[in-house]
């Protein structure tokens, strides 16, 4: 396992899962954070940006195209990602810490 992946798994306490399950959880977690990020960025876009974004989506853009686009057109995109990521982890930690042993 590469160090990055290992660390995420540790942060999310996924070390008790088989690798495939841990990866699946990571992808789902990413999806939820992506949902949150999109909720914030969507309305900050101008109409033109929205149209351009839609074109990329309609062409089934690759991840790097989408993220580069968002970084270029959305002010503080990286900050938004960071905030949403931390918010998610704090919330998760708060809830999960109260469950079980």
């Amino acid at each position, binding site marked *: 396992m590469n*160090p990055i992946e290992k660390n*995420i798994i540790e942060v999310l306490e996924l070390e008790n*899962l088989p690798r495939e*399950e841990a990866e699946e959880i990571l992808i789902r977690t990413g999806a939820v954070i992506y949902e*949150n990020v999109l909720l914030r*960025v969507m309305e900050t876009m101008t109409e033109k940006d929205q149209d351009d974004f839609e074109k990329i*989506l309609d062409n089934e853009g690759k991840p790097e195209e*989408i993220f580069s686009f968002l970084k270029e057109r959305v002010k503080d995109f990286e900050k938004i990602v960071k905030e949403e990521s931390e918010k998610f982890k704090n919330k998760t930690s708060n809830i999960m810490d109260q469950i079980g*042993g």
Partner: protein
Amino acid sequence: MAKDKFSKIKTDPESLAKGLSNLIKAKLENTENIPDLTKKEKTYKAGESVEWEINKPTERDDAFQKAEKIVDFKEEGEKEREINEKKEKERKRLANEFKKALRNKDKEKIRDLYIRSAGIKEPDPFELAKQRVLDNIEKNTEENFKNFDEKIDAAYDRTEKVAKEVEEKFNKQIQDLKNKIDSGFKEPKTEKERTIEEDLNHKRTEYAEGYKKFLADRKKEASWYLNLSRKIFGSKIKEEDTPKFLKDLEQEYEKATILFGKKMYAEKEEELKGNQVYMKIAKTGEKNLIGGPSDEEVKAELKRYKANEIFTKIIIEEQSKLNALKVENLPVKEKALWKKALDLYSKQWFDESKSKIKWKNRAAKIAVTTLLTTGIVAFAPSGASLGAGALASYAGTKLARGIAGSITGQTANQIFEYSTKAYNWLFNKKTSTERRAEQEKELAKIFAEDSFDTSFAKNKKEYSEIIERERKAKRERLITKSLITLAAGGLASYGMGSLAHGLSPEQANINENLTQRPNIHTGNTPVNHEQLQNQNIQNETIGKINSNETSAIKTEEIKNIPKGTTPEGPKIKTEFKIEEVKISSKGAIQTIENLKEKIRTDYPDISKAPASVQEFMRTNSTEEAIKLGFYNPNSPSESAMLLKGSTLGFDEHGNLTVHDIKTGKDSILIQGEGNKPRIEQYHGQMFDSDQNTHNIDNNIPDDQNPYALPPQEDALNNNAIEQNNINTQSEYAVPQQEDAIVNSESMISPEIKINQTYSENINYLFGDKNVLWENLKDSHAPNLTADKMINYSITDGTNEDTKKLVNYLNKLHEVTGLNPIEKTLINPAETNSEYILRAIQKASEMGELDKVKL
């Protein structure tokens, strides 16, 4: 006149251009004619119009497009009306057929109608709203054409507004209806009455509603400030800006989430510990674990369960549900974009079966996940490498605590380096093709599959073993129960050897059968009763968890197990595992897919699976469905039909078996023995799924609503699968017909259920003795009314039919507390049929319908 203009616009957009040009000229003339304007103002206004005409062609183009769309809407509206008329006719026809079928008690017909109506959908509120606006536009076409662009904009605004209103109203009605159906038409539950899950749903909705209100208030307050309202979503809402009511709602929602998670955890713990079998030594009071998972294994499995199932349920799924509610507050366009972006993420990027992206390495996948789950790249300056300060900053975050605890300097630098590379690859689109290829190569190297350590594989193996042990423990527990029952009946010596030495699933099966035939030799080592009794140790076998009530195997005497014995079961033949899935309402292909998924999990190394399983895994699921006879594309009745609750799975001999819950029979479809599995096709009931294509109208009264048809069969509908596959491209799409099939039981109206219960009960009481019931049911003869019949004294000589009716009337009274209405000066006494029907209705209102069913 109005129609002509629309028609012209549609066929010749140029004429619209001319029309608009004339309009502008007219504007200029009008401006000239306005006496109150100064010359300067007139010139300015004319110039403004001319400028609009000359310099802003895109606006004009937009106007054309909007005009065309309006015409499209209109035509769509007309088509919709035509379709609705046809649907209305079809619905009426179905409703009549249904009523007739009910009258005739034609169950086959009722089932057939049910299937045909299962695909019914609600009308699209947006279409309704559009139609309303278009109707208005049509009425005022002349006026609209004079002020074309303004009117178009206004019409669009109005469409959006009305559509939203209609949608909200419609959704509320649907939700209210669903709530009523869910609650069996009872009053909404109070907080105390709600289950933990219901409470969670309730609190989530409350929080989402509160959030919506908060946004609306914020927008209202900010409306004076130019365009500020558009920024509300994008900005992070500060803690101090969040009103108390919203914080309270969020807190309540979070509490409900935690409570639900705790419930899941406790239930799992109970389940796992329930599989532990302990033996108590009467003399010493000591308890020994003789079967099921050890405490450590329970602990490990609980950790896994928490990290996966609980996390998924209460964090991932909850957040998604909440976001889906929140996104409803976005304007239509943004909402559609949001959904589209998510769809791309989940279906194209990460669902490899559908993805067009070839993940030659896992770099991109990990880069995206890394970015989102850690925010790690947020510290990287745009397109540049991370500086020492950034790394220090990163290391100090809460996020990095896990890293700081276990990774030393060198590895942290590696993380730093890898994340920078992932970042550059993901964000730096201006990189040259060559450089990009290099970057991908580097990432491939870093994230190469073979760089993964094997700790997970180890965990995976352990996990499989735990599951296997759980299964085994369940069997052992069952057998222990059976044996103890036998022991209590004087057969104490039977089978104790098996219990003491653990049982394989195969042995368990044998012994389960033998518990029915205790005199047959088990083939296990015979038990020396005398010797065992001489040991004179009275042991007690108990289920550890919830020993107050759930363990059925406590305090029974077992005399044959030496003190301190810790049985070792025979080695499990892991290559023969029991795999089973429920028949999916989404069809045969989905069921096969589900089974394959399970097999993939349970057989990390598929080469160790039986030949039949391997063959099954190699075959395409659609082909498999055809081979097994679940799907026959050449037949009009192409899809197999099985009751909900039926299962498909491999048994411990590698046979693929379908269990039909309706008949209670197992049919072997693939014989697992030998190297070449033999296939037997499914020969059960088939049906034509093409008949399931009608739509619903919620205006139909309940008693005519074809949705309310009662059969409970789930179809292995392969067409439904195809539809579902299409539908899964958007998780927000309208539920397809297979959902309707699954949910239809809950959609049956209480009236239908009451009538069904009544008919079935009468059928049960009188069978084919129609004449007898005809004479009894509406009789006002002095001794045959319900109030007399209910008090009828049953003696040995009483006729069986009379006994049954009298008993049933009394049962109705016991359940509902209702007495038959006695004769008065004005009204006759209640007849038997009247009383029975009234009492069943009452039972239904009380939620006790099942208690009055015969």
